[in-house]
């Protein structure tokens, strides 16, 4: 490509960029107001997204306390937890539900679920894209 053509391309790019910036600067008040509202809605989502501080700080403590309680019960019972003698079986069943394998699996795979959600977001609208574009 000759240098004259390159120069004309550059000038054209600069002109279109300037034209676009002027059209952005000329946006009316109603549109600007709507965009501001949209921005604050997005920021509200950001606030919702952040989990409450108390839940984040007390969740690990709660898990440790539950494990400690279970250990204490097993130690005090001095027996095989699979048998039903010596302590409240219902209480152990509750703890089993709380510390159930499925729940732990879910916690362990949170990153996977987050990744999966992200992929859906990033690939939304891509399915037909290659066929059209």
């Amino acid at each position, binding site marked *: 490509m000759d240098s004259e053509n390159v120069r004309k391309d550059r000038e054209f790019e600069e002109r*279109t960029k300037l034209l676009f910036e002027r059209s952005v600067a*000329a946006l009316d008040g*109603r549109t600007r107001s709507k965009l501001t509202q949209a921005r604050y809605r997005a920021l509200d989502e950001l606030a919702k997204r952040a989990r409450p501080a108390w839940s984040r700080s007390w969740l690990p403590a709660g898990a440790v306390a539950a494990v400690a309680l279970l250990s204490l019960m097993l130690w005090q019972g001095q027996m095989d937890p699979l048998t039903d003698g010596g302590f409240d079986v219902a209480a152990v069943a509750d703890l089993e539900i709380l510390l159930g394998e499925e729940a732990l699996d879910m916690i362990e795979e949170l990153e996977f679920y987050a990744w999966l959600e992200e992929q859906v977001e990033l690939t*939304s609208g891509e399915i037909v894209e290659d066929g059209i574009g």
Partner: protein
Amino acid sequence: MAFAATLQAHMCLQREDETLESRAEMEAFLRDVESRAFRIAVVSTRDADEALDVVQDAMISLARRYADRSVEEWRPLFYRILKNRIRDWQRRRIVRGRVMSFFGGQEGEEYDPIAQAPGPSSENPTEALARSDAMDALEQALRDLPRRQREAFMLRNFEGLNVVETATAMGCSDGSVKTHYSRAVHRLRDMLGEHV
């Protein structure tokens, strides 16, 4: 015990500081991109209200899903979301159009002269008219481009993304971005000449 409580309070305060900082960064980012994103969405949707909805969806999605990414990643991610939202909107419109045509109706586009009135500007009326005409011509020419060329041109030229960021936003390779952009510039120049 007291030490643990103090530590807990300190950690809570630190988290609140981080949340406020993150909110301030996100707000600055959205404030920076929102007007240009809106104009880009208008080119594709030809409808200001639809463009506003699409931009709002993209902003909410970014805040909800990608706030924990680095600030440098936000711009290409935001435009990728915006691009996908526009595609989804176009598909919905096509389906809606088919349904309306099946029932013998057509989508009404009521013209509201007050809502469409331009906002206050420092330009004099002649300059504003010339700019408006030139922008209309540019928008029409952009709509006549193949979609990938249009996306590459708007992201590179209007939004100022570099090649790598544009590739991320478009979901293609750097080489494809260069090709689409170069073809877009030449076709637009052919279509518009000295009109802009």
